[in-house]
């Protein structure tokens, strides 16, 4: 994901702004990292450039 996406994304649960922690970056593309909601404390992983913004209790990978 691009860092500029932070302007519009928010926590899917309480709609609070998310804080970004970058693990790996390629230009302006964030390859891996974590998005954290300072309000509810939930974290959302960024893997292979894709932020997983599914609410945590539903993040099962049954079909993957």
């Amino acid at each position, binding site marked *: 994901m691009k860092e500029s996406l932070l302007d*519009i*994304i*928010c926590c899917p649960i309480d709609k609070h702004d998310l804080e970004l922690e970058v693990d790996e970056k390629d230009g302006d593309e964030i390859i891996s990292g974590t998005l954290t909601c300072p309000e509810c404390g939930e974290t959302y992983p960024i893997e292979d450039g894709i*932020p997983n913004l*599914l*609410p945590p209790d539903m993040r099962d990978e049954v*079909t*993957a």
Partner: protein
Amino acid sequence: MSESLDTDKLEREVKSMYAAVAESANSEFHFETGQELAKRLGYEPDILSYVPSEAIDSFAGVGYYFEMASLKPQDKVLDLGSGSGMDAFYAAMNVTETGSVTGIDMTTEQVEKANNLAADNGFHNVSFHRGYIEDLPFEDESFDAVLSNGVINLSPEKERVFEEAHRVLRPDGRLALSDIISEQQLPESIKSDADLWAACIGGAEQIDSYTDVVEAVGFVDIEVRENTEYEFISDQAASACDKYGVKSISIAARKQ
């Protein structure tokens, strides 16, 4: 929503069916996919020629609503249930490089495929994310238009989907979508069949209650058109359509 529908089972069914659509566009589903379908529904060949062909192959939309969406350059667009990205790429051609298109989908395989297609084909302003259309991870008033094609019928919480779409649109922003509805209420036996639900039939809302929900969450200027070009192809699906008037419509509306 139906009391007897197992929503966890439904989510698994929907994810596995559309993961299969992403991975094997030529398999047999209850519904048509691909280029021929897109052209028949009304997608313009000139614009389609710029859409990555793998996205078109996995296209499983049910109608064409772009003429009702009035997309223009610089628009920020959100596609609910973006699948392998067909409508998002098509929208990107309308909003040009000065706009942007964001797709959201709960199916991992579709999101990965769509992001790879965007990267491989130079769509820098198109991105796809994993999330639920009932819990949008976007701030209020982030978009000029919200699109969706053949997806909202799959949700057991349609009112919440429209509430969320309304929330993320800026004032005067447009909702434009195609979806499956029914003329008559479907019997419980169909509504509680997760396989038929995943095939866009079991979750088909009766048309008046569908547009009532769109209105109730705050949309105005609601316009409805029938997509007569769309048909289901499996026998089981086709007979449910004949019996209960299950069909494809396009809807456009505006946030006040």
